C-alpha cells in the first residue's frame, strides 16, 4: 500500500515541480499582495484617538472627556480583549468610569501619551494603569491572512482541478485498472499537496517576514501544526468537490462558491468584529476563519496550545468529515 501511495505521490510532485508557470505563480502572488497591501494601508496615521470605554453606563457617554474633539469612544465589555488590543495600540487609551475613574495607557504609544494628557485635563484624579506593547501594523495583521488565502487557493484549486483533469483525460480510469485503491490515490494527492503547501508557506513566511520585519509572538511548532491541520482541512474540502464531477464549469463554479465567501468573510483583509452576529457565525464555519483566528492568536498574541485547541479540533474534525465524504463519493471515470 505504502509503495503504491509513494509512486503516485512522487509522480504528482514531479508533475507540479516541472510546471514552472504554476510554481512561480504560487510563490509570486502572495509576495506581491503583502507588499502591495502594506504600501496601500501602511503608515497612515489615524485621525482620531480611539478610546475604549469599559462597561459604560449610558450616562457616562456624556462625560466631557468623551466629547473632546478627536476622541472616538468605543464601548467595550470584555476587559481582557480590550487590554490585548491596547497592547497592540489598536486603542490609544482604555478607560473605566464609575467609582473612581481608572484608565490604562500603553506607554510605548505616542498617541497614548497625548490622549492621556487630554483625559487628565478632564479627570485629574484618574487612576493610571500602564501597559506596554508595540503597535500592531496593518501589515502584521494582514500577513497571516495572505498566507492563509494562498493556502486556501492552493488547497482547493490545486487539488480540485488536478483530480478533475485526471478524470477527464482518462488517467484516473487507467489507474483504476491497477491495484491502486481510491483511498491510496486520494491519500497520495493529499500528501503531495500538503508537502507542497507546507514548503511554499514556509518559504513565504520566512521571505515575506524578513521583508516586512515580522516577528511571531508565538511558538513556531504550534504554528506549524496549525498550518498542517488548516491545509489538510482545505485540501479535503477541495477533494469533496472534485470527487465526483466531470464538468470544468461545474467544478470551477463550486470552487468559486467556496472560495469567495471565505475570501470576504474569513477575515483575510479586515476583522469581522462589528459585523452582524449571523455573519460571524457563518464565517466561523469556514476552515479558513478557524485557521486565521488561531494563526493571529499565535503570531500576534503568543497564544498557546490550550487557547487554540478548539480551532485545531475543528480543523481536524472537518478534515475527517470532508475526507470521508470525498472517499465515499469518489468516481474514477466519467459516468
Amino acid at each position: 500500500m505504502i509503495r503504491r501511495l509513494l509512486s503516485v505521490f512522487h509522480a504528482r510532485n514531479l508533475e507540479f515541480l516541472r510546471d514552472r508557470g504554476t510554481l512561480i505563480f504560487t510563490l509570486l502572488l502572495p509576495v506581491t499582495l503583502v507588499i502591495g497591501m502594506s504600501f496601500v494601508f501602511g503608515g497612515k496615521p489615524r485621525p482620531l484617538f480611539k478610546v475604549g470605554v469599559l462597561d459604560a453606563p449610558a450616562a457616562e457617554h456624556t462625560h466631557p472627556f468623551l466629547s473632546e474633539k478627536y476622541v472616538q469612544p468605543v464601548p467595550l465589555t470584555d476587559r481582557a480583549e480590550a487590554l490585548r488590543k491596547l497592547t497592540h495600540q489598536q486603542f490609544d487609551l482604555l478607560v473605566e468610569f464609575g467609582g473612581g475613574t481608572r484608565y490604562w495607557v500603553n506607554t510605548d504609544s505616542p498617541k497614548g501619551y497625548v490622549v492621556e494628557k487630554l483625559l487628565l485635563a478632564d479627570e485629574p484624579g484618574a487612576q493610571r494603569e500602564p501597559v506596554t506593547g508595540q503597535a500592531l501594523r496593518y501589515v502584521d495583521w494582514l500577513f497571516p491572512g495572505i498566507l492563509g488565502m494562498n493556502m486556501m487557493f492552493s488547497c482547493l484549486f490545486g487539488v480540485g482541478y488536478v483530480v478533475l483533469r485526471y478524470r477527464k483525460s482518462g488517467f484516473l480510469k487507467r489507474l483504476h485498472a491497477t491495484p491502486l485503491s481510491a483511498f491510496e490515490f486520494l491519500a497520495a494527492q493529499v500528501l503531495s499537496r500538503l508537502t507542497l503547501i507546507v514548503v511554499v508557506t514556509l518559504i513565504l513566511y520566512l521571505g515575506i517576514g524578513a521583508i516586512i520585519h515580522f516577528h511571531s509572538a508565538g511558538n513556531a511548532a504550534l504554528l506549524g501544526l496549525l498550518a498542517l491541520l488548516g491545509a489538510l482541512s482545505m485540501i479535503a474540502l477541495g477533494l469533496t468537490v472534485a470527487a465526483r464531477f466531470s464538468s470544468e464549469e461545474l467544478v470551477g463554479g463550486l470552487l468559486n462558491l467556496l472560495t469567495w465567501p471565505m475570501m470576504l468573510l474569513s477575515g483575510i483583509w479586515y476583522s469581522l468584529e462589528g459585523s452582524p452576529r449571523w455573519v460571524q457565525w457563518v464565517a466561523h464555519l469556514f476552515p479558513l476563519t478557524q485557521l486565521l483566528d488561531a494563526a493571529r492568536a499565535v503570531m500576534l498574541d503568543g497564544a498557546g496550545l490550550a487557547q487554540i485547541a478548539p480551532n485545531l479540533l475543528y480543523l481536524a474534525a472537518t478534515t475527517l468529515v470532508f475526507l470521508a465524504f470525498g472517499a465515499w463519493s469518489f468516481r474514477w471515470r466519467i459516468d
Partner: protein
Amino acid sequence: MTAPLIEVRDLIKQYPSTTAVDGVSFTVPEGICFGLLGPNGAGKTTTVEVMEGILPPTSGDVLYRGEPLGPRFREDAGILFQKTALQDHLTVRQCVALFRGLYTHGLDVEEVLRICALDTLARRDARKLSGGQQQRLLLAIALVNDPAVLFLDEPTTGLDPQARRNFWQLVESIKARRKTIILTTHYMEEAELLCDCVAIMDRGRIVAQGPPRRLLREHFAEVLLEVPRADFPDAARSLPLKLIDTSDRVEITTHDLEGTLRTLLAAHVPLTNLRVRPPNLEDLFLELTGKELRP
C-alpha cells in the same frame, strides 16, 4: 480439465437509453490471442471494460481463473485502453516507473522499455511522442506487471500503416511469451494476423465465434472473383450469378469457379484484370454484420 483463464457468462450491460451488451457468453483459454470484432457501436469496448472490472455489468458474470474479478485479477491484468492520457511533465521512464510502483510483481522498468523499443526515448517527455510511440508507451505500461492476461482495446486505431505493422510485431513477440491476449479491433487484417480465436459482435450480441479459419470454412464454401466495375457490362448483370457491388469492383461469389468463368467469357466480360481470391475475415465480417450504413 482446467478452468479457462477468463469466462464471460450471460453478460448484459444496459444504459438508460440502450442495451450495449445483450447476453454475451464466451471463454478465453490460457495462452491464446482472442479477438473481439465488430463494427463501431457493436458493444466490444463495453464488453471488454466489464471484463477488465472497469464497468459493472447489469447482469451476468466475468470469472478469472474460475473466480469473480478481485485483487488477484488487478495484479495479473495488463490493460491498454482505447484512449488514455498520462500525467503531464513525466518522461517515458517515469510514466512506466509510476505504474511499476502500483504492482507487487512485475518486470524491471528497463526491460519493459527495451521490449517496447522505448529505451532510446526513455528521457523524452511523454507528451512529445508520436502516435505510434505513444501506443508503445501505453503497451509498456500494460506490460509492466508482467501480466497473465493483456487487454488491447483497438490498439492500432489512428496509427499509420508502418506504426501499425510495428505494433503488430510487438504483439507477436508478446504472444510468443505465451501471454493470453484479448484484442478488440475493427481491422480484420489485424485480427487475421494475430488472433487464434475470434468472436464477431454486432448490436450487443455475438454473431459468430471460433478460430478464423474454421469460421471462414463454415461460412464460405465459395471463392470470390473480383472484376473491375468498368470491365463489367450492364448486360452481364442479368446473368445467374451472386453479385455484390463495391466501390470500384463487382464481386462474384461462387462454388463453381470453372463454370462461372465460362459464363463470364460467354457474356464477353474481359477477364484480363480478374482476380480470384479466397474469402477473408473482412468478407465474413461484412456478411455477418451487413454492409448498410448504420444510423
